[in-house]
């Protein structure tokens, strides 16, 4: 059964290679991401599977906006299809690349080392993290405890991406007035069903954030769910009533908060940030605070990106 899934996975990858109509790529890409998420889950990593599913949804939205804009100023959709060249010439064009890829693949497969993988860190982390960091989810304990430096830079990269998107845009001058509606006609059925789903998504996102240290989930996944809530809210009411500059400002403030909490935690010793006398029944307070901050930051960042695309990049 896994092999069937994986063969479908490869086929969707191959379909992307051989598809020339850009708007069909989105469908293959969605199938591909869905199977990827299932495979991550089968590999024993529900956290990564959840993040991949949410990220796949976001990339699909972004590609849809990008491709819709790409075709919006073309009358004839088939205009950009590849010119039909003779078969021999087409094959001759890709033959070196094909041979290169097959050769590299054979080389890599031959040279896969036979040695045992090293599991030193796995045993150390799994046996120690409950005492040193707290919580029950080893993945959260690693990215908020042992490797918190990586997480800081990941948060920084997200801020940089958000700033870069607003600075690299072609439409520097366009300002969208608050309170205006989009000019797209929305479906009332979709708006009604989203209105029902909306609160469930919000609660689910908060649940993922607050339970990130004892179950699968955490700041990233919960933050993505929160951003999805704001996207649904936009789709229901169809109104630009949130200031993008304020969201960016909030994101930078939250990033500052993450740095401050991390520094305090490192100096006090991670896991003991709240003395046991105050919260004797609870040892994961640091993890909850950090997951909450990271969740808010990721939600702000992704909501900013979505809003930017839907208001300005789409034009």
């Amino acid at each position: 059964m896994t092999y069937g899934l994986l063969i479908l996975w490869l086929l969707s990858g191959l379909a992307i290679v051989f598809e020339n109509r850009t708007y069909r790529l989105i469908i293959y890409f969605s199938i591909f991401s869905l199977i990827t998420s299932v495979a991550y889950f089968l590999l024993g990593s529900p956290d990564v599977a959840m993040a991949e599913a949410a990220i796949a949804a976001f990339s699909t939205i972004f590609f849809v906006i990008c491709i819709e804009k790409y075709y919006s100023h073309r009358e004839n959709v088939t205009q950009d299809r590849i010119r039909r060249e003779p078969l021999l010439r087409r094959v001759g064009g890709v033959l070196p690349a094909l041979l290169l890829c097959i050769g590299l693949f054979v080389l890599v497969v031959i040279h896969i080392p036979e040695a045992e993988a090293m599991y030193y860190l796995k045993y150390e982390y799994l046996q120690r993290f409950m005492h040193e960091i707290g919580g029950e989810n080893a993945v959260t304990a690693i990215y908020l405890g042992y490797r918190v430096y990586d997480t800081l830079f990941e948060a920084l990269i997200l801020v940089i991406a958000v700033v870069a998107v607003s600075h690299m845009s072609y439409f520097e001058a366009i300002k969208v007035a608050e309170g205006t509606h989009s000019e797209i006609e929305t479906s009332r059925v979709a708006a009604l069903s989203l209105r029902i789903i909306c609160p469930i998504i919000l609660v689910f996102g908060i649940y993922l954030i607050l339970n990130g240290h004892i179950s699968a989930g955490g700041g990233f996944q919960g933050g993505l769910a929160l951003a999805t809530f704001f996207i649904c809210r936009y789709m229901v009411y169809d109104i630009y009533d949130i200031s993008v500059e304020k969201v960016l400002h909030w994101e930078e403030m939250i990033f500052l908060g993450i740095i401050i909490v991390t520094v305090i935690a490192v100096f006090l010793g991670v896991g003991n940030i709240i003395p046991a006398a105050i919260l004797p029944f609870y040892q994961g307070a640091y993890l909850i605070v950090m997951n909450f901050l990271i969740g808010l930051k990721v939600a702000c960042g992704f909501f900013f990106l979505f809003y930017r695309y839907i208001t300005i990049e789409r034009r």
Partner: protein
Amino acid sequence: MGIFNVENIEIFSLILFFISFFGLITSKNVIKSIIFVMLIQTSVIMFWLKLGIEGNPTPIPPIIYDPVLLENIEYIADPLPQALTLTAIIIGFAVIAIVITMFNTLDRQYGTADWKKLEEAEGN
């Protein structure tokens, strides 16, 4: 050993890596190239996660709600690749968002998504 056997998943991820590499160097469309970058990232992450469960066909997620689970520690998936790939996925998406914005700007300036036409337009 259930129906979900993940033992040879690394071969599939290698094949996908080279499929997307082939697509990346032969693609004529900018949007396709962006998607292939995401595919390459996915295959690398899959390979890395597989390394964390080497010799362990039915991995347990690394969520230790009961210390008794630590007695069978060799059946638990390695949490370190998972934590690092979680970071890598978010960073990958941030990069893709920037790249799509750059493509939008490119499309506005030159009005095409074809690499060859873009090269010609740059040459003039």
